[in-house]
């Protein structure tokens, strides 16, 4: 036996991959220069990006934060030797007006209420949105809409408390009536009793309680709402209410009960067949004329209702899409387990249908949030409406891109966060079946 072997007996030591396939160079070769055609495309793209950025940045980077008028901006820029129509941005308008763009005409000494209100929205929604949030927060979730409304509008604390009591009234009406007269009548009572309470009893009761125990904070009128807080208020309310409303409408549309189905189809098709602007005009002008004189039906409330109904109609169709995508076997499986309608919906149908619909739901949310800018057409000063009002100041007349850029940036932050959240949710709910 000789020691000579013709086959290697031990492994070669591992070597580093070639320098051209790892690190920055590797990434560039892989992604940008993987062939002559791709290389040309990459170079052209890089040039285009360079041209855009160099134009944009040389405009955007402009030391005009302290300026108090457009002319002052121009003087500052001229002092730097920058002349011409697009010599530089005039950021003074943002530094002077950003609070107004955020809070509108809300009294500055009460800004904390707005901020606290939106923090409470976050706290109230956290247990719903993230399963890592403490479960104890769940008790706060049904309360927060009333707390937020009270903080934003102020006034006596009894208003929101009495409004909340409407739901308690509805619950007891259901328990009482369904106990003696059966389920369907119970459900009808559960809807009718709170409406009666809100329409006829809530006002006097709140007034009486307020007279006995006047607890409250300074009231802020809706007219003073503006800027992003107006957009966010309308947007969040519409989003929060349109989802449950949309689910109910989608289920109603699939119902076997003729009247329920007809009502839902009629509502959805009517609302979807009318542009949002038309609904807003109805809210701002028509309702005014038809309501009895002296009624003071808050303009923002009217707008919120219209936007919510509009969003709910779209939401219903998105969810119906999710319901339609479920295989028939799921419904039949639920039936064969002996589950009743609501149990089947809650345990089997809805969790799957909603999961399928997440991208559609979130894009409806984003669309609703952006649609809130339409209220500027009926004279509410949302960010876009305010941009016009700010330009009407002689100091800032002639400024366009700075204000729109700022508004676009803030909107992007909101919408992009929603979009990222929906992707997180999809990943979290991914069960690997598909």
């Amino acid at each position, binding site marked *: 036996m000789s020691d000579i072997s013709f086959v290697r007996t031990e492994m070669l030591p591992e070597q580093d991959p070639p320098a051209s396939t790892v690190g920055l160079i590797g990434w560039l070769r892989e992604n940008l220069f993987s062939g002559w055609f791709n290389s040309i495309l990459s170079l052209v793209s890089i040039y285009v990006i360079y041209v855009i950025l160099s134009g944009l940045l040389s405009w955007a980077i402009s030391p005009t934060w302290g300026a108090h008028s*457009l*002319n002052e901006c*121009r003087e500052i820029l001229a002092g730097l030797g920058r002349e*011409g*129509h697009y010599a530089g941005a005039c950021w003074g308008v943002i530094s*002077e*007006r950003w609070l*107004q763009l955020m809070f*509108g*005409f809300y009294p*500055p000494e009460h800004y904390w209420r707005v901020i606290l209100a939106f923090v409470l929205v976050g706290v109230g929604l956290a247990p719903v949105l993230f399963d890592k949030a403490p479960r104890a927060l769940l008790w706060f979730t049904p309360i927060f809409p009333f707390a937020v409304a009270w903080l934003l509008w102020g006034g006596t604390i009894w208003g929101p408390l009495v409004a909340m009591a409407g739901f308690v009234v509805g619950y007891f009406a259901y328990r009482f009536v369904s106990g003696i007269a059966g389920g369907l009548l119970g459900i009808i009572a559960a809807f009718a009793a709170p409406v009666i309470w809100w329409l006829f009893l809530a006002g006097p009761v709140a007034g009486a309680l307020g007279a006995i125990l006047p607890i409250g904070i300074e009231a802020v*009128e809706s*007219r*003073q709402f503006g800027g992003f807080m107006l957009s966010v208020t309308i947007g969040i309310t519409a989003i929060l209410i349109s989802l449950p409303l949309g689910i109910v409408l989608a289920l109603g549309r699939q119902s076997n009960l003729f009247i329920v189905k007809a009502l839902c189809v009629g509502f959805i098709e009517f609302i979807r067949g009318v542009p949002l602007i038309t609904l807003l*005009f109805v809210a*701002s*002008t*028509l309702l*005014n*004329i*038809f309501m*009895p*004189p*002296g009624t003071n039906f808050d303009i923002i409330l009217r707008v919120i209702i219209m936007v919510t109904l509009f969003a709910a109609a779209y939401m219903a169709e998105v969810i119906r899409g999710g319901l339609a995508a479920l295989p028939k076997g799921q419904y039949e499986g639920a039936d064969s387990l002996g589950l009743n309608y609501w149990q089947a919906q809650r345990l089997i149908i809805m969790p799957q249908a909603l999961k399928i619909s997440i991208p559609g739901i979130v894009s409806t949310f984003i669309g609703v949030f952006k649609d809130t800018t339409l209220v*500027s*057409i*009926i*004279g*509410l*000063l949302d960010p876009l*409406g305010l941009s*016009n*009002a*700010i*330009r*009407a*100041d*002689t100091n800032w*007349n*002639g400024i*366009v891109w700075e204000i729109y850029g700022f508004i676009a940036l803030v909107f992007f932050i909101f919408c992009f966060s929603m979009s990222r959240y929906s992707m997180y949710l999809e990943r979290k709910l991914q069960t690997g079946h598909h």
Partner: protein
Amino acid sequence: MKKSVFLGALTLASMGAGVAAAATLDDVKARGKLNCGVTTGLVGFAAPDANGVWEGFDVAVCRAVAAAVLGDPMAVEFVPTTGKTRFTALASGEIDMLARNTTWTFSRDVDLKFDFVGVNYYDGQGFMVPKELGVSSAKELDGATVCIQTGTTTELNLADFFRANNISYEPVPIETNAEAQQQYLAGACDVYTTDASGLAATRATFEDPSAHVLLPEIISKEPLGPLVRHGDNEWGDIVRWTLNALISAEELGVTSANIGELSAGTNNPEVNRLLGTEGNLGEMLGLDAEWAKRAIMAGGNYGEVFEKNIGEATPIGLARGLNAQWTDGGLLYSPPFR
């Protein structure tokens, strides 16, 4: 049947509005605030400052009325209205008066059931062109592209003017003044046409205002004034005579500076009647004797309001022109306080 129900509801609603309107003064006093409709923002005429306080030439009328009625020029709730919502806001009672550079026309006065109480600014439609175009008269604009706001009377006036002069133009429709500025500066149109006051305000924002000229032709009459609902003449009288008080004050030489001195009593009986030291004009209006004094003190007389907001000392730099007192060759002519 359906139609008659609908009409019945309308009648009821309008009767209700009539009932509500009959006591606007009482409503305003009970509320402690005047609801005044203004634009959502027009340079020099109405705009909120950084603190959210509204300022401007139209705003000054609201403040004067609030001062006269409520004694506090700041007791005004400004309701921003657009060109589309302004008339329903007034008709439905959401606002007590509208001071929103609104042109007094026959159909608005008669058909829409409003009362224009006077004119606080005589405007007219003009043209702005770049100086390098070398045009000195609107009649030389044959074949020009014109930036024009859609859905306004200016659009109709423009068509009339070009047709009457037998020349052609190409319209570039735009929605807002801000858009017009950008389009015009970018050269998308040769000419920008809107109210002359708006043109002056727009030109003042340009990098080099002297490179643009306003053509001498004014092709329309645009008397802008505050208006109230039909049917409440007492309230209309208050707004009308508050505006007249500002105009008369300028004519009589009453300013916010000397009003304290003059209200001690003067040799001019009309000044005395205006300021309430003689006669009972305030009582006739349902107000106290010093109503006009407070209205004038709110922002000064008409001339002072003009100079502060849109006059030659401001960037907008409008000359008095038609808006001078009749004694100076203008059209301002307040009926006597007697």
